[in-house]
């Protein structure tokens, strides 16, 4: 794409990435969560791909790194689920504990990020997974597409 688009993409990428992380981290108090934030973040990667080309992006975002990140997110998620196994799989064992343990009163309140038990951590895990998964999908498909173009 043209210079203008590239410049704007450079400007917007940090904003999109930050916004994605914001959506992930505030999943339990505002609309959003791991999936949504991860999708926003992955769209940032897609923006880089469209502005600079998949070949450029691949230089600093390797596919095996994404694979590691994805496995890591999955392991963190299922590990959190296993951690509740003392009572039941997926038991929210952090509610009331010092980590993310505040419990709000029933009804509308201004929202406190230090609540939710395992939910924020699971948001992070799913966020990692979705970021890695969607970025890997878009990146691999774009690379395959450009390679296909060269062959012909």
């Amino acid at each position: 794409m043209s210079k203008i688009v590239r410049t704007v993409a450079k400007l917007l990428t940090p904003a999109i990435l930050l916004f994605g992380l914001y959506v992930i981290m505030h999943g339990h108090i505002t609309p959003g969560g791991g999936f949504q934030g991860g999708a926003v973040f992955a769209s940032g990667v897609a923006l880089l791909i469209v502005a600079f080309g998949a070949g450029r992006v691949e230089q600093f975002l390797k596919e095996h790194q994404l694979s590691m990140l994805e496995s890591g997110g999955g392991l963190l998620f299922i590990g959190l689920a296993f951690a509740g196994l003392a009572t039941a799989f997926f038991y929210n064992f952090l509610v009331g504990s010092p980590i993310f343990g505040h419990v709000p009163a029933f009804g509308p309140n201004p929202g406190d990020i230090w609540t939710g038990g395992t939910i924020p951590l699971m948001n992070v895990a799913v966020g990692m997974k979705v970021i890695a998964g969607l970025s890997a999908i878009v990146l691999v498909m774009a690379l395959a597409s450009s390679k296909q173009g060269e062959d012909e």
Partner: protein
Amino acid sequence: MDALTAHSSILAIAIPLFAAFLTPLVGKLGARTRNVFVVVVLAFVEFLVLVLARDIYANGIHLYTLGAVSPSLAIPEHYMVPVRIVLEVDGLGVFMGIISATVALAGAIYSISCMKHETGQDRFYTLLLLLTVGMLGIQFTGDLFNLFVFLEILSISGAALAAFRTRFIDAVEGGFKYLIVSTVAALMVLLATGLFYGQYNLLNIAAIADVMQYTALDKIALALLIVALLTKSGGVPSHWWVPDTYTPAPAGTSPMIYAATLACMSTMFRVAFTLYGVKMSVATIGWLIIIAGLLSMFVGVTMALRQTDVKRLMAYHVISQGGYMLLGVGVGIAVLGDPQALAAYGREAVAGGLFHVMNHAFFKGLLLLTGEALFFRLGTRNLNRMGGMGRNMKWTCAFFLIGALAISGVPPLNGFASKLMIYEASYQLNPMLTIIAMMVSIMTLASFTKVFQSAFTGPELPEYKEVREVPLSMKLGMGILAGATLFISLFPSLVVNTIVYPAADALLNQAGYIGAVMGGG
């Protein structure tokens, strides 16, 4: 041990899932470590399923509420409906669980040598584990939406595995067809789930069955569910994807995809018996399923007679033999409203159908593996270009013989036992059914005689002089399934009484299933 028993149902799903996430990391340690890891995990899953089975046969339905204060507390205190996801494993669930776990173990062991020369093995084993997760998941769940999610896991991993050998165009096309069909089927399931949710505000199967009123919307949901699951289990109006998908599926995965198909079929039985039960118009639905079964038998076997591709031929037999299962269980559904007939032959029909499911998972899996073994050594699946392999590949030949005799219903093998049950029961409903079924059986025998002749007997072709027997792990994989087949053949009554009749009873006992969740019953 008690804790293990209490959590066995979720562990059987969560551990292969954990292993699947771990496989890419373990793969960095080397191929050997990874293979051992995968096999150990699957063996452990088999062990967990057996632990679960012991518990169920001793104590009845196993209930596990995810994330609740206590796993046995399906409904929150002081409330009237279940809120969380419930895993509910009864005789049928664990019956299919045993089948799936065994086939998965055999397939994984078989794949070790068979896949040695392929790239991307880490991902292959990841997907194989995920396919196992999907099969176990749809069997163990007691929640409709969860059923949809695990159906999708099944579809995606199955389609990806079918397309694994990307150098063949038919592999990719088979995978694509499977994916489209499964996605549409799964979306229909989701639509039906939405219809239930909109009316009753419930997602739990038992809770919905409890309050079901069989309104017009429920009828539409029934139609959607039956069509979707029949499609996924390769019943006749939508059988066309089956051969395309099974033929190119690599190594040990075709029996697993087959087991997945059977899992979908048993889910259909669960929907018909447990979700609707006597509330639906049983005779109509029963006869529809019987007709679908008869058509499947007939179309499958006639198409199979014309094939020259060995795996494709077997894939058509998949359709045809699926017809027997539909016939058996269909007879059971047709008489569901009539307690007398149900006791006289309905229960036996359902048991026969389910017994056939089990037998078939083993010996058809075995046959698909032998077909893959031929392909592995010869590089072709064309029967006309084979010959005389019986001398070079003695083990494969023996395994093939076991499978072929069993599938054709030759006594004393287990295929005969289950077919006999189906014949006896269907004869009492309508003798015509039995006659058609027997005819199909004879045609099956004819078709497999052809395969045996062209592949294993006859003159030895010069270009295959150097062909040797397949490696040890492939023999071991086939051996597991052949051993299971022989075991059932030797002790049919033991197997039938211990695990098949409990599964059939679990299907027929709707009140028990509901009562386990809702209490009281």
